[in-house]
């Protein structure tokens, strides 16, 4: 499909089409003084005229001068909350006369249409695909949700001070992994299809052919995002750099700053760690196994009978950084970081992994 143009006033037709197809449309909305992902019904639910200003440990919403609908970057939520929900029941057991009967609780699979997915987020979904779908074992919950999801991506036209997707080769341009991709211009959207599903969907929208001027303008706004990106991370040989410096003094220094609070792992769109808890009635006759998000920053995470393997902040921060940026490559064939900058913004004390990597590189052994 050649690039097409959707008038701004026609964006609702996209939502209507998606809802008509039985999708629950989720996308950016303003809530709790941030742009978060939630159910959206109409174009008016989008953060029209809002932008975000981010720096390490700080996020603020601000008014824009225009009425842009997608004039901000990524917020505290990521799409993993839909594809890989924070709490799910993975198994159940009931006591019967013949002993324990085990079962898989039936779970309805929601059909989501994600609207407003950024390039780094497409990359993050791709990373989680590798984790949950492409190893020897497949996560059925992720798989079912992932397959039922349609993705409408949006190209960034600006960047936050915390973004570094260009260093991770994940953005800001959406190149793959979407059904439709939009580029917002003052009058409307350049629409590209990235899949057959997307092409079919586009065919039902009141699109017109994109003019040369539109396309040129789109290139320009997308270029603006590229130029906006200030933060860099040098990834040359990063696996060996980090795994070869497990005793670097920087880890000790980090331990004085890091709170081990888990925020960076929770907001990271690729972190996938979980724990399973038993939830039962008092008699213990019906038991459910609940899986919930967990983090390598938690003390109990590395518990083994008799002690904790990672019994200090130093080792826990090191686990996070080396896993994300180094051992992930061994495990899944790509970095675990997509350069979205969330962990930098949402770290309550503003620890910035790009700075930490640079510091280690500077004095690496």
């Amino acid at each position, binding site marked *: 499909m050649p690039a097409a143009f959707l008038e701004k006033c026609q964006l609702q037709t996209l939502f209507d089409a998606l809802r008509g197809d039985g999708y629950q449309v989720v996308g950016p909305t303003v809530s709790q003084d941030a742009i978060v992902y939630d159910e959206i019904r109409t174009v008016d639910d989008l953060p029209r005229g809002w932008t975000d200003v981010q720096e390490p440990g700080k996020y603020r919403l601000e008014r824009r001068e225009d009425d842009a609908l997608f004039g901000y970057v990524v917020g505290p939520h990521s799409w993993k909350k839909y594809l890989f929900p924070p709490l799910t029941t*993975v*198994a159940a*057991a009931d*006591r019967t006369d*013949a*002993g*324990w*009967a*085990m*079962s*898989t609780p039936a779970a309805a699979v929601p059909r989501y249409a994600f609207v407003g997915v950024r390039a780094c987020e497409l990359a993050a979904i791709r990373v989680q695909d590798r*984790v*949950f779908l492409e*190893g*020897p*074992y*497949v*996560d*059925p919950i992720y*798989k079912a949700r992932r397959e039922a999801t349609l993705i409408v991506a949006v190209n960034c036209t600006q960047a936050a001070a915390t973004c570094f997707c260009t260093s991770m080769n994940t953005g800001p341009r959406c190149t793959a992994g979407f059904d439709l991709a939009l580029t917002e211009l003052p009058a409307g959207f350049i629409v590209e299809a990235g899949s057959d599903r997307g092409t079919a969907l586009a065919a039902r929208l009141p699109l017109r052919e994109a003019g040369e001027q539109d396309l040129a303008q789109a290139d320009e706004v997308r270029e603006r995002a590229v130029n906006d990106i200030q933060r860099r991370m040098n990834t040359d040989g990063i696996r060996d750099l980090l*795994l070869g410096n*497990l*005793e670097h003094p920087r880890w000790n220094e980090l331990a004085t700053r890091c709170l081990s609070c888990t925020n960076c792992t929770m907001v990271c769109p690729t972190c*996938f*760690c*979980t*724990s*399973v808890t*038993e939830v*039962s009635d008092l008699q*213990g006759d019906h*038991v459910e*196994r609940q*899986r919930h998000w*967990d983090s*390598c920053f938690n003390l109990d*995470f*590395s*518990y*083994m*009978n*008799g002690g904790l*393997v*990672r*019994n*200090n902040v*130093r*080792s*826990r921060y*090191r*686990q996070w950084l*080396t*896993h994300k940026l*180094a*051992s992930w490559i*061994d*495990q899944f064939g790509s970095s675990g970081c997509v350069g979205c900058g969330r962990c930098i913004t949402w770290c309550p004390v503003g620890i910035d992994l790009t700075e930490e990597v640079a510091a280690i590189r500077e004095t690496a052994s």
Partner: protein
Amino acid sequence: MVANPWLSHTVRIAKITDEIPGVATYDLEFVDPVQNGSYRFLPGQFNMLYLPGVGESAISLSAHPDSRGRWAHTIRVAGNVTQTLARLGTGATLGLRGPFGSSWPIAKYHGWDVVFVAGGIGLPPLRPAIYHVLDHRADYGRVTLVYGARSPDTLMYPREYDRWKAAGIEVQTTVDRATPDWKGNVGTVTVVLDRLPLARPDRTVLFTCGPDVMMHFTARSALQRGLTAEQVWLSAERNMQCAVGLCGHCQLGPEFICKDGPVFRYDRLAPFFRVEGL
């Protein structure tokens, strides 16, 4: 539909054999006869044993690799799951998922000398490999088991040593604390290992399972004795929740102990093993 990797299968305790204080061997059989007939495992693999409402634990199979219909697990009482399990009797049911993980590549070493080094509860995970050697004794050269325990009464499976010896396995036991009637070795397994005559270090393979420190020193000793890191295999241990590489708990450097291990060739783990807090 993809199989649910968290779904356990119901097994029944068919037999309980007390080993040493706090350790017993549980013979488990699947309630579903079809499953009981088709279940197979490799030496060194483990199952997740599940007590609903209490939790799940990784437990190696200690059974004969050709077992049929009953699957032995030797379990030490440690905490929640294992303690509750210890209160169950025969006939009780529990959940089992597995088998998981890599195995002792024992069959690949035909013609080699074999050294097993076990510490404490590290012997059960090695037992299936020992059984394999017993059944295929002619395929191997000199075979030695070095086994260390805290004290003589905590040595596991003593009733089997005679049979193992009779089949031509040299069994060298050692204890940290000797009792007056103890006539054997005293000290760590490495003390015994260091004295062990190795006729052909280039054709000797070493399999070890036990506490991290013990395996660390065992590997070091093996390397000093002329084995290469490629000739040493160990079974590692970390907290495990899913056993299928999806929960993230069991990472050790780049490895997921559950699916990349628990059995590793030492050269693969060496850079990360024993790094404090990894």
